């Protein structure tokens, strides 16, 4: 865990004072609505359907038990007793009062938390792999680099008013779990001739124009990372479109200029500032790394795995949970655990104050009091002794936090949707619940195997539907909710598997393709069920995943099967018409 020094703390506190003043001036009529709007957004405060919503940053997804208890306190005292984990390693509170926001932020500052740049047209919270620092397949520890980028980007004087929001993701592993291909800048750690640096993808993103990022620079040595980022942002700040909100993201600039010309412009700017004051020194990297409190693994006593293996053999339920919800660790004797927030019937990513407190306790009992938030909206316990897994699982079961569905169809990524969000065209949570209920037979869910199902209530794509193996998008037609289905999307391919894909496709990410006319809300579970039946019929073995079959055979067989059902084919909207409207 990164521990603030005096400077870090002072900055966060001074931002709280600044925001308190801004809120006061707004309430006194000294700041206009329009002036205050952007200022509050830069501090994570939206005006939503029911009340203001506050988005709190969890930088690179790292959280201590103490911080989680404070979030529980905030949820109880100023909200309605729960929060919502987002797909960008933030937590949102949906029921705040505007006049309480400065006090909430002051409370958060006492545990080294803030809402700085969680919204607005600025550099947002930098995200990374939820197993950063503990993954078995790691080339570098991205946490240190995320902190370096956090500091560089926080309250950046030149890039506070960009044409549009700007998201950076960092992957330090061979398997990209940070979805670097669908960020404004995606950084993939690589090694070249014994030196380490980053592969830089620019212009990826979802939203109404989903594009996979282009490889703008195959290798930027680590010393030059910040100057390269600065050059990239400067080109975007000066030349990104400001006349049309829908064409203002960096992906449009990269597309309009062509990736080659864009890369040249960045290089032109970079060569002027390369080697300048923002060059990263070894000393600086060390000083940042030393401000993290790293887990003190027990290296002396060998952790016995005998108990763990005996329970795996004896208890099928535990075995199943272990298969999906535990993950390889760099240290022998340890595992990482995903606490699923995707139990059927609870909104994906929602977490109650009681669950926060309970997870905080558990993280101290079975770990180092450190947690991670995944972009799949679950909580990770990074360091659990294998000998403790069985007891941990039993405790999680009591709390309804042991749903064994990580990587499976019911681990749905979903935005809050029309129930909360003012932008949404359609509800998300009830659709997610209906799908989970349709797939309530765990044996069947296991039979289906690895499958990412992502759901967004509107084209802003907060539920990352474009990169779901199956994606669902809520659309509005004459006040009615309709849902468009895509298949074949994915968030990564992994640099280890196929370097040519990694080079060409932004970490192997791909955008899903629409299968055809949209469906009514109540049809969705049946449509998904039918897609699954087609997959099971077509796969050549258990090892061939849904996404692999779509890749091998294309979308046609799926499309034919779904629309062969006269009840499903009755949908009245054509995808083409919809696409035209949405774009």
């Amino acid at each position, binding site marked *: 865990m990164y521990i603030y020094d005096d*400077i870090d703390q002072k900055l966060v506190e001074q931002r709280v004072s600044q925001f308190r003043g801004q809120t006061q001036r707004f309430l006194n009529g000294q700041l206009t609505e329009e*002036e205050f709007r952007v200022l509050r957004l830069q501090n994570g405060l939206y005006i939503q359907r029911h009340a203001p919503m506050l988005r709190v940053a969890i930088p690179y997804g790292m959280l201590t038990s103490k911080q989680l208890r404070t979030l529980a306190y905030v949820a109880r005292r100023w909200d309605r007793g729960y929060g919502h984990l987002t797909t960008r390693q933030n937590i949102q509170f949906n029921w705040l009062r505007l006049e309480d926001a400065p006090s909430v932020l002051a409370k958060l500052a006492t545990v080294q938390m803030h809402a700085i740049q969680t919204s607005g047209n600025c550099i947002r919270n930098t995200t990374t792999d939820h197993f950063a620092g503990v993954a078995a397949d790691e080339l570098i520890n991205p946490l240190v680099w995320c902190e370096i980028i956090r500091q*560089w980007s926080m309250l950046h004087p*030149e890039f506070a008013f960009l044409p549009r929001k700007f998201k950076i993701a960092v992957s330090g592993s061979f398997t990209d779990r940070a979805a670097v291909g669908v960020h404004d800048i995606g950084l993939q750690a690589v090694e070249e001739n014994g030196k380490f640096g980053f592969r830089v993808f620019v212009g990826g993103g979802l939203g109404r124009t989903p594009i996979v990022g282009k490889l703008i620079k195959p290798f930027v040595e680590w010393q030059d990372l910040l100057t390269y980022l600065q050059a990239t942002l400067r080109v975007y700040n000066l030349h990104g479109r400001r006349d049309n909100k829908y064409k203002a993201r960096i992906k449009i600039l990269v597309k309009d200029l062509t990736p080659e010309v864009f890369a040249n412009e960045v290089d032109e700017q970079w060569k002027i500032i390369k080697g*300048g004051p923002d060059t990263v020194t070894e000393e600086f990297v060390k000083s940042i790394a030393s401000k993290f409190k790293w887990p003190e693994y027990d290296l002396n006593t060998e952790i016995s795995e005998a108990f763990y293996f005996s329970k795996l053999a004896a208890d099928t339920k535990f075995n199943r949970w272990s298969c999906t919800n535990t993950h390889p660790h760099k240290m022998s004797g340890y595992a990482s655990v995903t606490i699923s927030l995707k139990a059927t019937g609870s909104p994906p990513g929602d977490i109650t104050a009681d669950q926060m407190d309970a997870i905080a306790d558990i993280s101290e009992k079975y770990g180092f009091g450190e947690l991670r938030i995944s972009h799949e909206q679950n909580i990770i316990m990074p360091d659990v002794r294998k000998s403790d897994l069985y007891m941990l699982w039993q405790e999680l079961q009591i709390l309804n936090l042991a749903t064994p569905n990580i990587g499976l169809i019911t681990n749905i990524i979903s935005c809050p949707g029309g129930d909360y969000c003012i932008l949404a065209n359609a509800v998300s949570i009830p659709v997610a619940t209906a799908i989970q209920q349709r797939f309530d037979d765990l044996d069947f869910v296991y039979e289906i195997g690895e499958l990412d199902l992502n759901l967004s209530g509107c084209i802003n794509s907060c539920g990352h539907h474009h990169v779901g193996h199956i994606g669902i998008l809520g659309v509005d037609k004459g006040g009615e909710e309709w849902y468009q289905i895509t298949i074949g999307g994915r968030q990564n391919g992994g640099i280890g598997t196929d370097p040519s894909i990694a080079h060409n496709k932004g970490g192997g990410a791909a955008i899903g393709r629409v299968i055809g006319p949209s469906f009514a809300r109540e049809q969705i579970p049946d449509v998904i069920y039918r897609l699954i039946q087609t997959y099971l019929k077509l796969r050549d073995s258990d090892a061939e995943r849904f996404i692999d079959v779509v890749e091998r055979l294309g979308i046609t067989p799926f499309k034919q099967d779904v629309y062969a059902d006269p009840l499903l084919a009755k949908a009245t909207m054509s995808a083409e018409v919809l696409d035209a409207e949405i774009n």
Partner: protein
Amino acid sequence: MLRLIRNGTLEVNEWRIFDNSSTPLPGDEANWMVSLATWTDNFQFLQKRKHPVGILIPPDAEPKDILSIDVSHMNHHPIAFIAIDFPIYTDGRGFSLAQILRTQHGWTGELRAVGDVLIDTIHYLARCGFDSFLVKEGHDPELALKAFETFTVHYQKSYRQPIKILT
């Protein structure tokens, strides 16, 4: 009203923007700001004035066009200041233009932010190299003066500390 922050204090703004629709150049009187285009076309004349002009740069100016002004030359000639216009405070191009003028073109003279200049943007503006500020109507200039001290510590190494204001 005192709206212009300059040299750490508030002054009355007496500067006017020259409109070249009737005459090509302003008379040799005090307090004229001319556009970047007017300056580049006429700098031979303009630099000989008894009353130096200010140059107003629009937010969409290409940095290389500004580069075509010989800034090192300007540093030694009578130019009152370079002003960068913020048509709306959310247009962040002026921040990059200022930083480029300061760190890459060597402009050491006065750099003024004009237009939609808020109490809330002055701190960032100062860090990007602005040293005078025409605070917009409706924003208390006294509060704007205090905004230099909004943050007393910073992360970014290649940006200056806001100038300490003596009150």
